[in-house]
């Protein structure tokens, strides 16, 4: 008993550590280190390893994303519902059920701030920046939150309601309010998760679901804003090449009827292909004073909704 008293604190820390590692971490820290050491030893002693293995963290992240999707996958039948609820504008008359881009080149026009009065902006911290410094906070609705991802987008509690402590999820908020335009920009937080295919697949599900919730709305999918070349070369999974790949896949989701693809990158990137370092401090977010580049781009790329603008002008 004497030594128990003597070593009490160390035993406490070790014991609690054992509990913590078993319950929270499942001993992954040590398992991963063990695997890595084993691989290293194999490299050293047997020369080469089978080349099939990917770096472990990416694989596990992809697994995690896969599991997440299984849980909340939209049934196949629902997928085609997008064409069913599509606002008919009666000019091209595409056969229902076809997913290919079919609206032709969209015609964009320049609009004023009030175009955004029935718009909702959904996105991550970059959209939060637009909310805080874009001068639209009085005009439009923003369902934006730091770290928002396409995987957890609908069930994230981000919408504040006056006189209510609990925040609404984006899904609940979209059920209660109706909008004409949805602006969506997510994707930078997902860079380390899944592959281009799994990301776009999930993105499409979410896009479809948004249009289901808002049957009168059109959806602007915004390409993921790039980062500076320096940030891109920092050695983690956020690279401009990766963003470009995902953006190309996102662009294919547009049908130019209800879903449009916008990409502000050409305006904020320099010759390196990354965000201009003058526009940002951390290489990821636009500084507040340059938020207008983005906002003006959106104003110059507004889709005419069935002559709505002409009516307003008249």
């Amino acid at each position, binding site marked *: 008993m004497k030594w128990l008293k003597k070593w009490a604190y160390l035993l406490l820390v070790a014991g*609690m550590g054992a509990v913590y590692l078993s319950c929270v971490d499942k001993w992954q820290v040590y398992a991963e280190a063990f695997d890595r050491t084993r691989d290293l030893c194999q490299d050293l002693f047997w020369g080469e390893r089978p080349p099939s293995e990917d770096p472990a963290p990416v694989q596990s992240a992809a697994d995690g994303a896969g599991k997440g999707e299984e849980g909340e996958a939209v049934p196949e039948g629902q997928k085609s519902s997008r064409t069913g609820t599509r606002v008919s504008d009666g000019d091209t008359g595409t056969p229902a059920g076809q997913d290919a881009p079919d609206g032709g080149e969209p015609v964009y026009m320049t609009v004023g701030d009030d175009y955004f009065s029935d718009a909702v902006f959904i996105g991550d911290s970059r959209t939060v920046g637009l909310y805080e410094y874009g001068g639209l*906070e009085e005009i439009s609705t923003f369902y934006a939150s730091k770290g928002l991802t396409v995987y957890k987008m609908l069930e994230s509690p981000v919408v504040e309601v006056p006189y209510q402590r609990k925040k609404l999820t984006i899904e609940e908020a979209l059920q209660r309010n109706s909008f004409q335009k949805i602006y969506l920009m997510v994707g930078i937080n997902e860079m380390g998760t899944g592959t281009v295919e799994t990301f776009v697949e999930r993105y499409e599900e979410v896009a479809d679901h948004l249009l289901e919730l808002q049957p009168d709305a059109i959806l602007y999918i915004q390409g993921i804003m790039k980062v500076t070349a320096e940030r891109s070369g920092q050695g983690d999974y956020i690279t401009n090449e990766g963003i470009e790949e995902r953006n190309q896949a996102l662009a294919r989701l547009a049908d130019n009827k209800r879903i449009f693809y916008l990409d502000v990158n050409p305006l904020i990137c320099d010759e390196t292909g990354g965000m201009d370092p003058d526009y940002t401090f951390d290489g990821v977010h636009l500084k507040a004073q340059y938020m207008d580049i983005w906002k003006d781009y959106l104003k110059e790329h507004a889709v005419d909704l069935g002559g709505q603008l002409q009516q307003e002008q008249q």
Partner: protein
Amino acid sequence: MIFSSIEFLLFFLPLFLLVYGSIPLKMRNTALFIGSLIFYAMGEWRFLPLLLASVAVNFLLGRSMALPVKQRGARRERLRSARRNKLLLTAAVLGNIGLLALAKWRSASGSAALPLGISFYTFQMLSYLIDVYRGEQKKENSFVRFAAYITMFPQLVSGPIVSYGEVRRELRCRRFNAGTLQEGLKVFTMGLAAKVMLADRIGLLWNEVEVTGFECISTPLAWLGALAFSLKIYFDFYGYSLMAVGLGRMLGFELPENFKDPYMAVTVRDFYRRWHITLGRWFCKYVYIPLGGNRRGEFRTVCNLLAVWLLTALWHGGSGNFLIWGLMIWLLITLERQCEARKLDRLFRRGVFRAIPHFYLWAVIPVTWMCFAITDVSQLQLYLGRMFGAVEGIRVNAADWKNALETYWYLFGAGFIACTPAIARIFRRWKDSPVGMILLAVLFWACVWRLQAAGQNPFLYINF
């Protein structure tokens, strides 16, 4: 490798302690030396040769100094050995300072990274050599002991700057038992919590301000950002120093305290007697006092202070903002000296007036920290301009500071409480009681949990 990392907490430290505790006493300095080299190499292996070369050369320089006072022997011989010592010391000072200056200059101009810990280990070796030269310390004849003193991992990369006299006895014989080990671990836990639970989190507000861009923040937010940075840099550095002291105690060393509640000070002078004490002490002993200290009249004192603060600024970094920072502090200290000489400080000794100096400190220190934090001088001008409303903002969101307070109020609250001596007092009172120990153990693993969460998802803190 830094202390607040999974690799250190869950791999290096337990393994090292196992080895260190199980080998015979005589080999512990060797183990400490080798362990420290591994620790250093895991952080930045490219600079390991530089560290080793520096330690070896300085060891040889110290060893070849003749004993300064020779009782016997001819006068001429004494003179010769004195001259030789002088030459050796000059070479050592020039070499070490030159190397440090070169490294600082290269990192300031962006051409190379600063070798890890060079500011700290260079100063430590200089203090040893000067002490030996002055005859205040006997020289160390064992390379392993000297190398263990310089490189011991608790203080290698971020101080405290330990003088040789403080650990001389412990390098020869030190205690390593249940008492010291656990005592050290408790102190370490407090330091870890300061870093992980306070510094890393309140630092996010400062990061947000930087991301927004200084042109677009409101004046209240500029002040909040400065306050957040002031708290962040304190808990960062204080936490790190506390962890160093804790680790030292775990291994059987008594390392000096680096901070004594600096934000409870009432003057800037007082503040820097409580902030990074081991550095202040170094400059005092090896620069200020040799220049004459305060014994040669007020004008000379002010000049000496200027020299000290310019050197302190250069020690922190070669870029212009550090000079502004150093000059600002020098100016404030000089003004405070003048006020004190005119006995103005007596006005603030009674009643509610006692609060005024505290407000003064909390108003002035964040401004000086901004000069420290913002390395681009034009950006610094902009930030100070926003703080004092001298520069017009662009697209300022007038409510931004309210949002910031809404998110960070509890961290500010916790930070202010942790700036008072209350936490340390509670720690001393309860650390040995069962409840206190359980809480500390929980705190330790809570920190590990946060670190792990941040490691798996780097954007838990800074997510986009």
